[in-house]
């Protein structure tokens, strides 16, 4: 896991065993809940596991975050960040 100062935490889960992408994404989203919710940090998840794309995005939105998904090279990039005041449940 690498951190770009002040802004984005990158979680590279490409090639991980199923269901590590979801488990580790949940673990990190929970661990960084305060920073993510406040907008101080965004979480950038790299996964090559297709099954994890809907499950991570669904879990993140359920937790009140905004998620964007991008398919790049041979993997998916999921950017999890604060959804603003309305997004927090």
């Amino acid at each position, binding site marked *: 896991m690498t951190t770009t100062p002040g802004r984005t935490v990158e979680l*590279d889960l*490409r*090639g*991980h*065993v*199923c*269901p*590590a992408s*979801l*488990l*580790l994404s949940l*673990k990190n989203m929970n661990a960084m809940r305060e920073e993510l919710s406040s907008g101080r940090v965004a979480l950038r998840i790299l996964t*090559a596991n*297709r*099954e994890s*794309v*809907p*499950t*991570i*995005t*669904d*879990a993140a*939105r359920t937790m009140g975050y905004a*998620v964007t*998904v991008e*398919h790049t*090279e*041979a*993997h*998916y990039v999921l950017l999890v960040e604060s959804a603003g005041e309305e997004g927090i449940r």
Partner: protein
Amino acid sequence: MMPIGSIYIPAFAVGAAVGFLMHRSGFCLVCPFRNFFLFRDALPARNLLLAVVSSMVLFEAARRLGLLPFYPFPMLGFPSVSHLIGGGVFGVGMVLAGGCAVGVLYRMGAGNLVAGTAFLGLLAGSAAYAEIHPAWSVVKERWTLSHGWSTIPQGLGIDPGLVVLAVAVPSVALFLRWRAAGSWTRRGTLPRGYVPMWAAAIGLSVLGTAIYVLSGMPIGITTSCAKMAGWVESVFAPGHFATLDYFRSVPLNVASRAGGILRGGPAPVSDALAAIQLPLVAGVVLGSALSAVLLSEFRVYRGVPPPQLAAGFAGGILMGLASRMGSGCNVWHLLGGVPILAAPSLLFAAGLLPGAWAGTLLLRKIIT
């Protein structure tokens, strides 16, 4: 049923379609257990039930139309506690490996390194079983629960159609209820080229029925893994290989209705099982690879944490061992035996539950 010499291409085509569908949908036979235990995600379990019930209906329709060369299919055997134990060990292994035998093949086809190590584990586990085969055969025989019947309808002495009807009607009602509640749809953003799991579940039951009609047996792949393991052993340790009774066993030895004898076993030779299963295996791997390439998603990532690679290999070993102990892997039992209510398969499925639960506890520790 096709002449066995003509089965290669249809078996490969079925395997390729299975691999393609599984890659696109993410449908696998581990998720129904693991995802429920880990995340309380019941969608994969619903889809497994759909695949089982639709296979049940299609198998029964094919039987009534006289299309099934064997019923029950060969190599099913009689119910034994060994099936329960095999299911339990397989359950642990499939969760650790991140996929069952077919799941490992399709993920390997898409370039997943953990699945590749799990496949090597499958071969190693099959070879390991050969060492315990004589002792396990005694256990299996001693713990056999009945020598007179294999399926529940046989045991009860009733028409299989009645049992299928008794299961299918309430299941369809349940499926419609889930449909009304929107419970078949995966929420969240879908990956590119996504095929809904329910479509894959129905597709797999159609493909499973096709291979049953064409070859006389449902989808099965793990005897071919034993064949590959036997081949490796015969090349690198021929002296030891010659001492192993397992590779001389012939579990498939039946007269086909079309005439001739269907024979096959784990020995690394060309026989009926090689003709059916090896093209299936190749098809699953290449079908999934094709799907991944078409989506520009084929890539081998090397930065996998070593504990995950080790778990994949260990899981593969357990699956290879358990598929021999339990006379088949989970796809053979869940999508082949359970749809005809075969008692050995129901016992294997019952064993999968505690095994997958234990595997989930272990995997959580390894990953997090």
